[in-house]
C-alpha cells in the first residue's frame, strides 16, 4: 500500500501540490484525474523521487520513500512510465526491454518472454527499432520495459496521450488485465477521465494541486459536479 500524507511540492513561487493525502490500495487501480496543471504528473514524479517535496510523507508498505534516489525507488519496486514514454528510438524493442531488465532479479530470457506473451506485437517486432513503432506500440513497449523489472507498483503517466480511441480502449484493457492477479498496484494519471474511470477501482481528482475528490471510481464517475467542473466530461 502507498500512503501519502500532507504532501506539498513547490517550484519556486509555484505550489504544484498542496497538502495532498491519499491511500493507494494494493492490487487496485487508482486513477488520478484533473485538468492541465492540476499536479498529476508532479504527484507521480514525487513518488518516484524525481521531485523533492517541501512537506509531507510517502510510504510504500511502511517504508518511507522520501530522500531516496529515483534508481533506489525503482529497485524498491516502483515502476514509472513517464509522459512521452521515454523509449529510445535508435534501440530495438528488445534493447529497450533489456534496459528495463537491468534491475530485475529474474533471468533476462524469462522476463523477455513474459513481456512478449503479454504484448505479442512486441514479440513480433523485437528486432525493430522503437522509432518505427506506432504510438500504441510505443506505449506498450514503455509499459513492458517497466513491467520486466517485476514492480509491485506501476505509475502510468498519460498512457493514452496521442492515441486513437480504439487503441486507447485496447490499452486500458491491457492495464486492467495487469491488475487481475491482485499483486500489482497501478496509479493511472489520465486526462481522458472516462477511459480511466472505466477500469479504475478508485479515483482521486486534483485541482490546482489540491485533492477535490477521493472516492471509488464509480462514485466519482457518477458525480455530476466533478464530471462537469473538474473532468471536462460534458454529456
Amino acid at each position, binding site marked *: 500500500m502507498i500512503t501519502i500524507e500532507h504532501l506539498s511540492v513547490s517550484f519556486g513561487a509555484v505550489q504544484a501540490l498542496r497538502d495532498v493525502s491519499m491511500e493507494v490500495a494494493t492490487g487496485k487501480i487508482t486513477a488520478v484525474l484533473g485538468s492541465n496543471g492540476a499536479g498529476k504528473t508532479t504527484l507521480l514524479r514525487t513518488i*518516484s*523521487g*524525481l521531485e523533492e517535496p517541501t512537506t509531507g510523507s510517502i510510504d510504500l508498505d511502511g517504508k518511507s520513500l522520501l530522500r531516496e*534516489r*529515483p*534508481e533506489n525507488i*525503482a*529497485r524498491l519496486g516502483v*515502476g*514509472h512510465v*513517464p509522459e512521452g514514454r*521515454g*523509449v*529510445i528510438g*535508435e*534501440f530495438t524493442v528488445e*534493447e529497450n526491454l*533489456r*534496459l*528495463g531488465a*537491468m*534491475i530485475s532479479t529474474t533471468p533476462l530470457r524469462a522476463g523477455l518472454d513474459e513481456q512478449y506473451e503479454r504484448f505479442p506485437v512486441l514479440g513480433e517486432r523485437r528486432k525493430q527499432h522503437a522509432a518505427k513503432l506506432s504510438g500504441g506500440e510505443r506505449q506498450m513497449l514503455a509499459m513492458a*520495459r*517497466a513491467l520486466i*523489472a517485476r514492480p509491485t507498483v506501476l505509475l502510468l503517466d498519460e498512457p493514452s496521450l496521442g492515441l486513437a480511441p480504439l487503441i486507447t480502449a485496447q490499452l486500458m484493457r491491457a492495464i486492467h488485465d495487469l491488475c487481475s492477479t491482485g499483486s500489482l498496484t497501478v496509479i493511472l494519471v489520465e486526462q481522458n477521465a472516462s477511459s480511466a474511470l472505466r477500469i479504475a477501482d478508485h479515483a482521486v481528482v486534483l485541482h490546482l494541486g489540491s485533492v477535490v475528490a477521493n472516492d471509488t471510481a464509480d462514485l466519482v464517475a457518477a458525480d455530476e459536479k466533478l464530471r462537469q467542473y473538474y473532468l471536462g466530461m460534458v454529456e
Partner: protein
Amino acid sequence: MAASATTRRAAVGASTGVLAVVLSFAFASSTRVAVALSLFLVILIKGMVLLTSAQLRATHPVIARAALTVVVIDVVLFATYFFPANTNSNLAIGAAMSIVLLGLSFLTGASGQISLGNGAFMGVGAFAMAIWANHHATSPIAVGLLVAVVSGAAMGLLLGLPATRLRGPYLAGMTLAFAVAFSAILSSFNSWTGGDSGLQLPTAATPPQWLLNFFGPGTSLLTTNSMWTADIAIFVAGIAFFFMANLFASRTGRAMRLIRDNDVAAELVGVSLPRTRVVAFVVSSAYAALGGSLTTLIDNAVSPSTYSFALSITILSLVVIGGIGTIPGALIGGIIFAYSNSVITWITNQTGLNPQGNLASQLNGIIFGVLLIATMLFAPMGIAGTVRHLRHRRRRRVPG
C-alpha cells in the same frame, strides 16, 4: 543447412590454412620467417572463417568482435613490415590519437557529456609514462602503459566526481579549466616533470631481445624503432577498440545512451546517473591517458607544450569530424591527425610558403577549422555517421 554451411566453412578454412603454411615454407627466405608468415596467414584465415559466420555474429557478438580485432591487428602489423618509416610513424601517431578520440567519442556520443580537457588527460598519461620510465628504466613497456592508464583513470575520477553535479556548459567549463591549468600544474612539479623542457625516455623503445633472437641476425624484421613503436601502438589500439566496442554494446553502454537521450527515463529504470556519468568520465580519461602514453613512447620524449589547451580543441574537432559516438569515426579522426603534418608539408611545397613563416605555423589550425566547418555544413553527423546514414538509407530503398 546451417550445420553443413559451418562444416563447409571449417573445411575451406582448414584446407586454406594448410596451403598457406606449405606456401610459406616454400617461398620464405628462412624457416623462422616461414613460421612468422604461416602464423600470420593462419590467424588471418581463422579470423575470416569466424567473421563470415552470420550465426556467430548474432549469437556470440563478443567472439565476432574479437575475430575482427585479431584480423585487423594481424593485417596491419604484417603491413608495417613493408611500409616506409614515415608511414609507420604516421600509423603509430594515428593509432595513439584514435584511442584518445575513441574515449572522447564514447563520453560525448554515449553518455552525452562534453569534455574540453582530454588534451590534458592525454598529457597525464604522457607524463605518467615518462616519469615511470625514468624511475624504472628496466620496466616493461606494458607496465608503463598500465601506470599511465591508472593515472588517467584516477585523474578522471577526481574530476568526474564533482562533474556528476554539472551538466552541459558547466561541465565543459570545468574540463576547460583543467585543460588551461594543466601546464601550470606541470610547472609546479618541476622535479618530476622536467619543467618547460619536459622529459626524455631513458632508452628508446626497442623490440625485446627474444623477438630479435627469434628472427636471427641479418633479417630486417622488427629491427627499426618506427616499426616497433607502430606495432605496439596498433596492437594496443586494437585491444582498446575491442574493449570499447564491447562497452558500447554492453548494458553499461546502453544505460549511458539512455542517459544521453532521456536521463529521467534512465533514472526510472534504475540507472544511477552519478555513477554512470563518473564511469563514462573515467573511461574517457583512461583512454586519453593511454593515447598520451603511446605518444611519449613514439616521440621518445614528452614536452608540456604538446598538451596545451589547443590540443583539447583539436581532439574535440577530430571527434566531430570523424563522427561522434562512432567507432570508425575515431579511426578516421586519428588518420586525419596523423597525416595533417604531411598535408601541411605538401601545401608549403606546392605554394612555396616559408615553412617557418607565420602562415605556415598556423596552417594546422586553419585545416582543422575548415574541416570542422565543412563537416558542420555538409555532414553534421561526421564522416562515419554520414556514411552509416547513407548506407541505411540505401538499404531502405532496396526492395525486399
